[in-house]
C-alpha cells in the first residue's frame, strides 16, 4: 500500500510517501512561496526520487482542515485531481489530529494550535494511550485564552503538562507563556508544524477504520462559514437560494 500524504492547511506545505509502514519520503517547506507554486513540484520530486509512479499510489491522505481556506482548497483540489485521474480514494485527515499524531507516545497533553485570525485559534486537545491517539477536544475555533484554560484544566486533572505545538505558536507563544505562568512546554522545530508524514500515517489508520472519501465528495473542513454567510445569518436571513426562488421573486 502506497499512500501520498498532502498537507497545505496553513503556512507549511508538505507531502510524503508512506509505503506500508515505511516513510519513503517527506518534503516539508515553511517558506514564503504559495502552496500553489510549491505543492505539486514537491509531490513530483518525492515520487521521482523514490521511483514511484503516480499510478503506484493506493490512496491520497489529505489534511482536511481546519486552516487557511485557500490553503485547504489548494490541497483539496490537488488531491482531487490526483484521485480522479488515478481512480483512487481520498482519506480526509483532521489537520490538528495529524499534528498531535506526530508526537505519538508523548506523556503530555497535546495542544496543536493554528492562527484562525480574528483573535481566535483553531485548536484541539489530545493525549496518547501508548501510541494510540485519544481526542480530548475536537477542533474548534476559539480564543487562545479559552483554549489554554481548557488545556491546563485537563492537565491538572491528569497530573500532566501541556505541550503546545502547531504553526500558530509564533503568534501565541507569549500569550500562552503568560497565561500558564511559564508552565507551558513548546514543541521543538522538528515537531512543531504540520508534516505530511503524520498525515499519511494517520490516514492509513483512519482508512483501516473505514474512513474514506473520494474525488467527488471530499470537501475541506472549514469550521467557519464565509463572512458573507455569517453576516446574513446574523440578520436572520437564509443562506439558501431555494427559498427566494420558491417565492418566485424576480431579483
Amino acid at each position, binding site marked *: 500500500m502506497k499512500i501520498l500524504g498532502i498537507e497545505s492547511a496553513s503556512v507549511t506545505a508538505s507531502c510524503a510517501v508512506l509505503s506500508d509502514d515505511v516513510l519513503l519520503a517527506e518534503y516539508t517547506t515553511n517558506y514564503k512561496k*504559495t502552496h*500553489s*507554486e*510549491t*505543492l*505539486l*513540484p514537491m*509531490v*513530483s520530486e518525492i515520487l521521482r526520487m523514490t521511483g514511484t509512479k*503516480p*499510478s503506484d499510489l493506493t490512496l491520497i491522505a489529505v489534511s482536511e482542515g481546519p486552516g487557511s*481556506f*485557500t490553503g485547504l*482548497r*489548494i490541497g*483539496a*483540489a*490537488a*488531491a*482531487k*485531481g*490526483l484521485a*480522479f*485521474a*488515478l481512480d483512487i480514494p481520498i482519506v480526509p485527515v483532521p489537520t490538528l489530529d495529524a499534528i498531535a499524531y506526530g508526537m505519538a507516545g508523548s506523556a503530555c497533553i497535546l495542544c496543536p494550535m493554528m492562527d484562525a485570525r480574528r483573535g481566535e485559534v483553531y485548536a484541539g486537545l489530545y493525549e496518547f494511550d501508548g501510541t494510540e491517539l485519544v481526542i480530548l477536544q475536537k477542533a474548534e475555533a476559539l480564543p487562545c485564552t479559552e483554549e489554554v484554560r481548557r488545556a491546563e484544566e485537563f492537565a491538572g486533572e491528569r497530573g500532566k503538562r501541556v505541550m503546545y505545538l502547531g504553526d500558530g505558536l509564533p503568534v501565541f507563544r507569549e500569550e500562552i507563556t503568560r497565561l500558564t505562568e511559564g508552565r507551558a512546554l513548546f514543541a521543538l522545530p522538528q515537531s512543531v508544524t504540520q508534516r505530511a508524514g503524520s498525515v499519511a500515517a494517520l490516514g492509513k489508520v483512519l482508512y483501516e477504520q473505514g474512513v474514506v472519501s473520494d*474525488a*467527488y465528495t471530499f*470537501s*475541506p473542513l*472549514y469550521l467557519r462559514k*464565509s*463572512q*458573507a*454567510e455569517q453576516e*446574513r445569518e446574523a440578520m436572520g*436571513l*437564509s*443562506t439558501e*437560494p431555494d427559498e*427566494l*426562488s420558491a417565492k418566485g421573486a424576480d*431579483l
Partner: protein
Amino acid sequence: MPKDITILAIESSCDETAAAVVRNGREVLSNVISSQIALHTLYGGVVPEIASRKHIEKITPVVSEALKNAGVSADELDAVAVTYGPGLVGALLVGVSFAKSFAYAKGLPLVGVHHIEGHVAANFIEYPELEPPFACLVVSGGHTHLVEVTDYGVFKIIGKTRDDAAGEAFDKVARAIGLGYPGGPKIDRKAREGDPEAIRFPKGRVEGAPYDFSFSGLKSAVLNYLNHAKMAGETVNDADLAASFQKAVVDVLTERSMDLVRARGYRKLAAAGGVAANSALRASLKAACDAENVAFFVPSPILCTDNAAMIGCAGYYEFLKGVRSGNDLNAVPDLKLGER
C-alpha cells in the same frame, strides 16, 4: 492527415465551474457549466469565498461529466488547458490546482490560458471559417477592451476602460433600480419594455484617447437622475431608464468599434465576453457592420458567458505554438491581456 488533438479544458475564474472537451480547437465534444448565480444573487454579487467553496465541491463532477458527455476517456486526451487568470484568486486556484495534478497524474502537457483570450476564441468555435486578423470588442463584467487580434493568441490592445468595465456598469445600475444581480441580462430584459430615447445620458469620452472607454460618468448620471426624481417625488419609469442607459453604453461600444474598423481598414469585427450576450449590443454592432459591409462575428450567448469550451479552443492554439505550463503554475488574478 495530422493526428487529432483532444483537450480537456477547465475554467473556474468567477462563479461558474466549467469543463469541456474540445477537438482540434474548434470541435466542442462537450461543454459542462455549473453556475452558482442563484447562490450569489442573495448577496447582490459574487462572494469570492462562497464561489471558491462551490468550485471545490463541483470540480470533479463537472470534469467527469465533460469527459462522459464527450465519450472520451482520460487516456485519450492530448493535453489539459486551464484558466489561470484574470479572475478571483481563490476561485482560479481550484481549477488550476485540479488541472495541474490531473495532468501530472496522467502525464499530460498542461497549458495555462488567459480567460479573456478564451472569450475571444469563442468566436473560432462559433465560426469555423474565422481566422485572424480581425478587430475585436471584448466586453465583460471585469473587462472592456478594444483589440486587434493579429494572430492566434496575439493581441494588440487599442483601447480599454479607464474606470468601470461595461458589465460592472450594468450591475451597478441594475442594483440602483432594484433589478438585482446579475445586472446584464436583467437590464437587457427590462430595456425591451422601455424607450431608449426617453432619457439622454452622457456618452463618456476620454480626452486624447479616442479608443478608450469611461463608464463611471454614465453610472453617476443614472444615479443622479434617480436621486433627482426621488427628491422631486417623481416615479421613475424603470424600463425607460434601463433602455436609455443601455443605449448609451451600446452606442459608445459600437462607435468606438467602428472607429477602429474604419481607421485600420478591417473587414472583420468580432465581439466577445459576457456583455456580448446583450441583445441590444449584438443588434447594434450587426447593423453598424452591415451598413459598412464589414463581416460581424459574435458567439451564441452560451459561448459568450464563462465556459470551458472557449478555454479549450484558446488552449489548443497555445498548445500548437508549444506553450506549456509547469507544475508550479499559479493563479494570476490580475493577468494582463497578451501577457504570460
